[in-house]
Structures are given as structure tokens and as C-alpha cells.
């Protein structure tokens, strides 16, 4: 059978389950034999497991090219209880395969990078034994992400949704005994987990509503129902979509639940790149795109989606301007870019959203990994200094992530600089890099739908270019502002080669959906309702101009006269309190602390101390229950048992005495007593049979 025949038959679909199986196999091997295999083998096994998944994703792509309508690959009957039937089948259609290709492709590159990065990191942190654990978690993440992406129903999607959340938690707290006060990383993990729980709660409620309304959790049934009966059920669908949106704001870090993502940077850099920039956080966008049929019916929800996305895009972009931690800038940038995508799916431009999702995966993964490369360079420099006996930190804790400790790295880390620059320009939306095409498609669609959304996004795009310009200038230009930065070396090829490959993606990603060709639009047409977005030269010109202007301003502020060692951010002088607000993230964390966390803890204290302990335990249990019981048993024992029972027993002779003896000692050990109780039982049963039933 030739390859084209295989394609015609669509039999390649049958391989889809392998996309989950390979990472699972990889993690099992590493989990069981990891310690004996050594670092190199562990890294190779984990990376090739994901690489094989990528190959499977490509096979699915070929299969879809002849059968674009897609299919559902059944794996098992999972739950069948009464009306509820939830099979586990893999949905292979153009939307899910787009995610598969992106996730497995980017994951494979990051896995390779992580071999080099974690080799250094576990030694820097002083526990080389944890190398294996990292790759086990990493493979587990890919497997659960694939479960999410390939889900054919809401429950299976939720399984993946929770699975990636778990991996996120495990990996944020990977160095759980490190961080601020030896507990900072663990707290960051907990924050991510709890914040996500709020979103998950929304997802769960939405699922309950769907089951209540439709009686099925299968996507096909639900969407069909929305199509047929959507108009009579607008209220229900609006409620469903709003709760789903709550879920998306948790997973994709949008207002009001975005606060966990910046803290999630406590995880190792490959984690930030893979989970908290390229893949997991896009799950919310994917979920809303998947549920297009529902959002189409609920206009209110769609508008809210767009508004939340656009507001987050702008809000997070302003915060990014005021950050000094190289990864935090990127974290807020991620939140902002996710806002762009959410706004896109909100205004009905699912294709633009997915397009930006894919290009963003390339350049944001690239930026994070490059940032990791920078950080490791600085750590090396720092380490080198300690080695030669200098005292670089001046006694204070040295923060390798702080951009104020960097500067002038352009000449020290050439490859890192160039790929970082490419990533930054792509993110800023400079022609002809990937970000330009996808961002402009979103802006053009927004312009078409709503002027408010368009304005918010355009201003956000301006800030994007500004903070990226600021970052590049602070990190790579000027003079080194610390001894460590002076001695920062370039990293080995195992790290730089994935960077170069991602950079190629960041440059060429735009060809996915060039104006006039609409490759991605045609591709997704088989799964979603799509419309072709016309290239809008005015919008494109305006946004490019704004981006260039922003970069120019950044140069004016940071490039013309480079920041000196220990001098404050020049923007602080110019903007005053506004910069303080940006630097302090507009005090959102403090606000939540004040409005939610503290009242909650106070309430919990009251419940635990007053209600549970004093009322329930001290009073109800100890006083009411225990005392009553004690008094009662004392009475039974003294008054009833000793006097009444014994009285009767002594009076009625041996037979009764044996019975009462049995009642007191339950288990005498005498066969005669057992036989007697047996006989009593027989008499009771038989009398009931004879007299009781007629």
C-alpha cells in the first residue's frame, strides 16, 4: 500500500492515541529506571518521547489533508452511569491538530534545551538528583496537555485541564524548598493552584449546566443542541459560556485571575517557556475557540470575552513596563498577549486568535529560553567570580534575574542576543516577522467589530513595543552593571540550537496565514465557522508606526544615555507615581489580599476556633455528647445493667444469666453461649416467618 493510499483510507488516524502514549511511556521509563540511566539517557528518552509525539502529530496532519472533516478515535468507555455516558475518544480535527503540532513541536525543542539548562540548574541549586524528576514532570505535562487538546467531551477536557494544572503546580514548586524564606517557590505554586481552582470551579459549574441542559457532555451533542435549540436557550448558554470564561481567565491568566502567572516564574525557565508561555496558558483560548458554537449564540458572553481580553492586554502591558525581573517582564507580556488572543476569539475571529496563539508560542518560548540563557550566563559569571575569590554581591543576595544587574551582554552572548532581538521584534509586531501578521489580523478584526476593543489593543501594542525595547536596551546594550555581567559566557549548543530553530519559527511563522493566502483560515474552516480577514493597510501601517515610535521612545529613554550602575530607572523620574504604580503591579495583589484573602482567613479562623473548636468540640462534643454518653452509660451500667439485668438474671436462673452474661461480655468464648445465641436467632427468624409475614 503506497503512502497516498494510506492517506486516502484515513487509517493514519488510528495512530492518534500514540501521541499520549509516547510521553507516558517516556515518563514511566524515566520514573522507574531514571536513577540508573544517568542524565544523558534521561534527557534523550524524554525528548525523543515528545519528538515521537510530534511525528504522530505530523501524521495526523497528513491524514487530515485528505480527510479534513476529521474523526474521533475511540479508546475506551470511561463512565456509564444511568443517563451519563462518557466515552474516551480522541478528537482529531484541524483545530486539535493545530494545537498538537504546536504543542509537541515547541515541547520537543524545549525538552532538548532543558537537557542543557537543567544540567546546570540542578548543580547551581545543589541537588543533581532532581534532574530525572524534572523530565518526568515535563513528559507528564505533554501527556496531559495532549489529553486536553484531543478531548472529545467536556469531562475529558477537564481531566486534561486539571492534569496540566497539576504539572504546572509541581513544576512551579520544583525547587520547593528554595525561594524567599525557603518557602517562596512553594507559595508561588500554591498561589497558582488555588487561583486556578477558582477558574476550575467555573469550568465545573459550566459542565453541570451543560449536562443539565443537554444531557450529554460530548462536544458534538452539545454543539448540535446549541445549533438547533440555541435561540430558545440563550439564558442557559449565556450562563454556561460565562462560567467557561471564568475557567479560561484562570488557566489563561486573564483579569481577574491573572495574578498567579507572574509568581509562576519561580519555576525553572524551561517551565516558564513551555507551560507558562507557549502551551498550558493557551488552553483557555483553545477551549473558547472550541466552544465557538456556544459563544456564537451568547452575544453578551462574547462581548465580555473580548472586553476582558482587551483590558487584560492593556493592563498587563503597562505593568510589564515597570518590572525589573527579566522573566517577570515576559510573564506580564504573556498575560498581555493572551489578552490579545482572548479578545480575538471574543470578537469572533477564532482564526486570528489561533494564528496569534501559534506565532506567540514560537516567539514567547524563544524569549523565555533566551532569557534563561541570559540568566544562566549571569549565574556563570557570578559563579566564576566567587571562584576567583572576588566578592561580587557585596554581601547582599545576588539576583541573576534582575535586569539592573545586566547590561552590555550583546558582545558577551552573541547568539542569545540575536535570537532575543528576533523574538522581541516579532513580539513588537515589526514587519515581516511572525507577530506582525498575527497581531495585525487581530487588530483588523477588532477594528471591524468594535472600536473600543481596537483602541485598547492598539494602545497595548504600543506598550508592548516599548517594554520590549526597554528590555533589550537594558539587558544587551550599554555597559555591564555588575561584575557577573562582565564575565557572562555564551551557553553550549544544546541550548542555543533550539533557540535558533525557534527563532526561525518566529521569523517565518507568519506564512501560516498570510493575507491573500489564508492557509490557516482554510485549514480551520473544516472545524470552525471562519471568515477571511482582509488585510487592512491602514491598521497595519498605524500599528507598525506606533511600534516603531515606541521603540524610538525606548531608545530615547534607555538607549541614548545607558543606565549606570545603581542608578534608578530614568522612567521613574519622567512618570513619577505612574511608574510606581506600574512597578507595584497597580497593587492588585495587595487589593486581593485585602478584599479576599484576609477576610477569608479571618472567616476561617472564626469557623475553626469559635464554631468548630469552642462550639462544636468543646461544647457540643465534650459537654453535650460525651457527658450525656458518660452519664447514660453510667446509668445503664449502675442502675440498669447491674440492678435490673442482674436482678432478673439471678432470679431466672442459669439460662437468663447466660443471656445477660452475653449482653455484658458480648464475646464470652464459650461455644455453649454461641450456640445459645444461635438458637435465639433461629427462634426469632422462624417466628417471624410463621407469624410475622401472614
Amino acid at each position: 500500500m503506497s503512502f497516498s493510499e494510506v492517506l486516502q483510507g484515513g487509517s493514519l488516524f488510528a495512530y492518534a492515541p500514540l501521541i499520549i502514549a509516547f510521553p507516558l511511556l517516556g515518563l514511566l521509563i524515566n520514573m522507574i529506571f531514571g536513577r540508573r540511566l544517568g542524565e544523558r539517557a534521561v534527557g534523550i528518552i524524554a525528548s525523543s518521547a515528545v519528538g515521537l509525539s510530534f511525528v504522530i502529530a505530523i501524521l495526523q496532519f497528513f491524514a487530515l489533508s485528505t480527510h479534513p472533516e476529521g474523526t474521533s478515535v475511540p479508546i475506551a468507555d470511561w463512565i456509564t452511569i444511568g443517563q451519563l455516558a462518557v466515552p474516551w475518544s480522541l478528537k482529531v480535527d484541524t483545530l486539535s491538530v493545530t494545537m498538537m503540532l504546536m504543542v509537541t513541536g515547541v515541547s520537543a525543542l524545549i525538552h532538548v534545551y532543558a537537557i542543557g539548562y537543567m544540567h546546570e540548574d540542578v548543580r547551581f541549586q545543589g541537588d543533581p538528583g532532581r534532574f530525572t524528576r524534572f523530565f518526568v514532570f515535563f513528559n507528564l505535562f505533554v501527556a496531559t496537555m495532549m489529553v486536553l487538546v484531543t478531548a472529545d467531551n467536556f469531562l475529558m477536557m477537564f481531566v486534561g485541564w486539571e492534569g496540566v494544572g497539576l504539572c504546572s503546580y509541581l513544576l512551579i514548586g520544583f525547587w520547593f524548598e528554595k525561594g524567599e524564606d525557603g518557602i517562596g517557590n512553594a507559595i508561588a505554586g500554591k498561589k497558582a493552584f488555588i487561583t486556578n481552582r477558582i477558574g476550575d470551579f467555573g469550568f465545573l459549574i459550566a459542565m453541570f449546566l451543560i449536562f443539565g441542559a443537554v444531557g450529554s457532555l460530548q462536544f458534538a451533542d452539545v454543539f448540535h443542541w446549541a445549533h438547533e435549540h440555541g435561540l430558545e436557550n440563550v439564558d442557559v448558554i449565556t450562563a454556561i459560556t460565562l462560567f467557561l470564561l471564568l475557567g479560561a481567565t484562570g488557566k489563561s491568566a486573564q483579569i481577574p485571575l491573572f495574578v498567579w502567572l507572574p509568581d509562576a516564574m519561580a519555576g525553572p525557565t524551561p517551565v516558564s517557556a513551555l507551560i507558562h508561555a507557549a502551551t498550558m496558558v493557551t488552553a483557555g483560548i483553545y477551549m473558547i475557540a472550541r466552544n465557538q458554537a456556544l459563544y456564537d449564540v451568547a452575544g453578551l458572553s462574547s462581548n465580555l470575552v473580548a472586553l476582558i481580553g482587551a483590558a487584560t492586554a492593556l493592563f498587563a502591558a503597562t505593568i510589564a513596563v515597570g518590572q525589573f525581573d527579566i522573566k517577570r517582564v515576559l510573564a506580564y507580556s504573556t498575560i498581555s498577549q493572551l489578552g490579545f488572543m482572548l479578545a480575538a476569539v471574543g470578537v469572533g475571529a477564532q482564526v486570528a486568535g489561533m494564528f496569534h496563539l501559534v506565532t506567540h508560542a514560537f516567539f514567547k518560548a524563544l524569549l523565555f529560553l533566551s532569557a534563561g540563557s541570559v540568566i544562566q550566563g549571569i549565574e556563570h559569571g557570578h559563579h566564576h567570580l566567587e571562584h576567583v575569590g572576588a566578592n561580587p554581591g557585596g554581601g547582599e543576595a545576588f539576583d541573576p534575574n534582575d535586569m539592573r544587574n545586566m547590561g552590555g551582554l550583546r558582545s558577551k552572548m552573541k547568539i542569545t542576543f540575536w535570537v532575543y532581538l528576533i523574538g522581541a521584534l516579532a513580539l513588537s509586531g515589526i514587519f515581516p516577522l511572525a507577530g506582525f501578521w498575527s497581531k495585525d489580523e487581530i487588530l483588523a478584526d477588532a477594528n471591524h467589530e468594535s472600536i473600543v476593543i481596537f483602541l485598547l489593543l492598539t494602545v497595548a501594542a504600543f506598550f508592548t513595543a516599548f517594554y520590549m525595547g526597554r528590555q533589550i536596551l537594558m539587558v544587551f546594550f550599554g555597559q555591564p552593571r555588575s561584575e557577573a555581567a562582565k564575565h557572562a559566557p555564551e551557553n553550549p549548543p544544546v541550548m542555543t540550537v533550539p533557540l535558533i530553530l525557534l527563532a526561525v519559527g518566529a521569523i517565518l511563522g507568519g506564512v501560516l496565514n498570510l493575507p491573500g493566502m489564508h492557509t490557516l483560515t482554510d485549514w480551520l474552516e473544516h472545524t470552525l465557522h471562519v471568515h477571511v480577514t482582509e488585510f487592512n493597510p491602514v491598521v497595519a501601517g498605524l500599528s507598525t508606526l506606533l511600534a516603531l515610535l515606541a521603540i524610538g521612545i525606548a531608545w530615547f529613554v534607555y538607549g541614548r544615555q545607558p543606565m549606570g550602575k545603581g542608578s534608578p530607572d530614568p522612567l521613574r523620574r519622567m512618570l513619577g507615581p505612574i511608574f510606581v504604580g506600574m512597578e507595584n503591579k497597580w497593587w492588585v495583589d495587595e487589593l486581593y489580599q485585602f478584599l479576599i484573602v484576609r477576610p477569608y482567613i479571618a472567616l476561617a479562623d472564626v469557623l475553626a476556633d469559635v464554631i468548630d473548636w469552642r462550639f462544636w468540640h468543646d461544647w457540643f462534643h465534650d459537654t453535650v455528647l460525651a457527658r450525656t454518653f458518660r452519664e447514660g452509660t453510667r446509668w445503664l451500667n449502675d442502675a440498669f445493667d447491674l440492678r435490673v439485668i442482674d436482678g432478673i438474671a439471678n432470679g431466672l436462673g442459669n439460662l437468663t444469666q447466660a443471656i445477660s452474661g452475653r449482653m455484658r461480655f458480648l464475646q464470652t468464648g464459650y461455644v455453649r453461649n454461641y450456640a445459645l445465641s444461635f438458637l435465639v436467632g433461629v427462634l426469632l427468624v422462624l417466628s417471624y416467618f410463621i407469624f410475622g409475614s401472614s
Partner: protein
Amino acid sequence: MDTRDLISILPLLVLAGWACLLLLIDLFVPRDRKSITAILAAIGISVALVINLMQLGEVRQAFNGMIVLDGFASLLITLFLAVGLIAIAQAYDYIKRRGIERGEYYSLLLFTLCGMLLMATAGDLIVVFLALELLSIPLYVLAGFARPQLESEEAAIKYFLLGAFASGFVVYGIALIFGATGTTALDGIVASFAATQENPVLLLVGSGMILVGLGFKVAVVPFHMWTPDVYHGAPTAVTAFMSVGAKAGGFAALLRVFLAAFPELSAAWAPMAMWIAALTMAWGNIAAIAQKNIKRMLAYSSIAHAGYILMALPAAANPTVAPEALRAVLFYLFGYAITNLGAWGVVVAMEKAEGGGLAIEDYSGLSNRRPGFALAMALFMLSLTGMPPTVGFIGKFYIFRAVIDADLIWLALVGVITSLISAYYYLRVIVVMYMRSGEPETRSESWLNATVWLTGLGTIVFGIVPGPLLALASQSWLSSLVP
């Protein structure tokens, strides 16, 4: 009698023949190499198991209806034989260690298994009695196998005396039923009573006595008194086998006899079974709390579980719920067998030479010493409590559902409340293992370990993916109930 009759009981024939042969072979096996006998016995069981699996799904009668082979019987036979295999694996090193390694141990085990097989296929009250005795008598011997240890002998004598007492009721009940209807065939009783409606009191008393006799075997209140003493005194490996095999055998007969022969009398026995079930659950679970010895604790736990299983009998009295209730019972028996054998396996591993290591306190610090065993034990305890994601939860879920569907809400409530109570003593084992420090002594014997791992795996796997087993259980009909 023709060849087809013999084929129908082929697993039984193989097992019985093999057991006799084994007694002979054992004479030539040297004293210090009795493990050969164990392996031979396991081979015999495996052969029977294979034959049985080949017959799975067949429905037919043999020996003029004295033997009924149907899905219900085949599935239970599978259970019995699997339990037999595990029992051999658990006894393998244990009886060596206790110094009671004698070849007849395995022959007796095979004879008991024969009784169980017969119990599941009995289509006539005489065969039920025969099976009951065949099941019981080798067990009496096995309970006293640790002679001349006093505890073990005491257990055997108690078990034997009370068992004989109970058998007396069964045989008297059969006589009365024969007197009332002129037949002992299960389907004959129904037909005869439906035709004449004569002698209802004799029939009622007869069926009541059978309920009593079988109730003794499965250990329901108030016929449970022997259980703690016998479970405590018998060698632990025997207890494990007894607590699962004999109980399942008793229920096999109980369900078949009452659903096939006495459906007309359900107005009498259904409420009685209901009360007994409620009382058993309450008594077993409450008495278990006070136990300090793990064998006694598990004995009361097994009494309580008999109550849960018995709940299905009144539910099955309602013909529309019967299939669901039967399915639930079969699933429960499997789940209980897996979980309970695992728990007893851990107890076997913990037992020290002179019967030490059996107090619950002796499990302190097990999580440090043998983390895998502690985890498995924790799983078993959770499963016995009925917590997800273990097989015990699924089992209870389906039993309760059948009971609720039969509109016996209060019975289900008793079940739920007593389950809640049971958490107290099951979780205490986990607390002791994980939160108290200690240096417990454990055995690491490969066959025993294998049974613990296997059952632990089963406990969790069937808890997460109950579908296949459930599907199998729902296909396993009592042939008399086939519409």
C-alpha cells in the same frame, strides 16, 4: 448420566480427582520439600480455571437439573479458583514459617474449593447440602491446622461444633421442604408450590432454617458469634481464604436458593433479610471499633461486609431490580475478595513466630519500614471503607443503588451510616502505620509480596476502570431468572 453431564462439571471433576491424587503423591514428597505439593496444587487449580474459562457463557443443566451451569455459576467459579490460587501463594511460605508445612494442607484446600464450585452450581437442595458439607469439613480441619497450638485447635473445635449445629438446621429445613412439596429440586419447589399452594407453614419454616444455616456460613448477626474466635485462632493464611471463599460460597447458595426456589415467599424472607442485613452492618462495624487485634478487627469487618452483601437479597426480591442487584453482588464479591485477600496478605506478612505482631499497634511505623506495603494496606483499608477511587467504593455504590432502586431507602441509609462508622477503625490502621513511629518486623516473601501487589493493583484499577468487570457481572445471569 452422559458425557455432557460430566463435561458440565469438568472443573469440579479435575479438582476433586487432583485433590485425591495429591494426597497420594504427597506421600512420596520428602518432608522438607512440601512446596512441590503447593505448586502441583496450583497447577490443578489452573487447569480447572482454564476449563472453566472455556465454558464461560454457556448455560445448561446436568444430572437432571441437579447441576445448573449458568453465567452466575461460571463467574463465581472463576472467583473461587482465583481465590484458591492466591490462597496457595499466601500459604506457601507462611506454613513453612509457622512450622506446620504438611502436604495435606493443599489437598484440603482443593477439597474446600470443590465444595465452593458445587455450591455455585447446585440446582437441588440435596446438592446444596452436599456442597455445604464439602466446603465446611476441610475448613474445620484447616482451621485447626496449627495443632498442637491451643488457639488453633480451639478455633477448629468451635467452628466444627457450631458448623455442625448450623448444618443440622439446613438439613432439617430441607426435610421440611421435601415434606411440604415432595421435591428438593429448586425449580420443582417453585412449580409445586405454585400449583398447590399447600403447606405454606412447613415451606416457610424450611426456608427459614436454610436462611439460618447459610447465614451462619456467611457470618451474619446473630449467627456470627464464631467468626472472631475462629478467624483469630485459625492460621492467618487459612483465615484469609475462609473470609473470602467461604463467604462467597455461602452467598452463591443463598442467592440461588432464595431467588430460584422461594420467589413466592419473598414477603417473608425479604423483610427478614433486610433486618438481618441492617443488624449485621451495625453490629459488625460497631464491635470492630473496640478490637485491638487486627485479626479480630478484620473478622468483625468481614461480618459487616456480609451485611452489605446481604442487602442485595431483599433488593433482588423485587423482580425489576433483581438483575441490577445480582450484578452488584457479583461485583461486590469480586471487589471484596481482591481487597480482603490483600489486607490479609499484609497481616500474614506482619505475623511473627509465636502469634506476635498481630496487634494494630504493631503496625506503627510500617510506612517507614515498608512504604510499599503500608501504601497497599492503606489502599485496602480505604477500599474496605468504601472510598473512591478504590474497588470498594464502586461495589458499595452499586449495592446501595440497587437497594435504593428497590425503594429500601432506610436500609441504604443504615448502610451509609455504618460505612461512616467503619471509617473510624479502618483509618486507625492508616494512622498507626503513617503517624506513629515504630520498627515493625515484616517478612518479605516473594509469593506473598506478589499477592499483595496484585491485589493492591486490582483494588485501584477496578476502582478506576470498573467497566469491564461490571459488564461481565451484568452478563452473568442466574439461569432461572432469564426472562
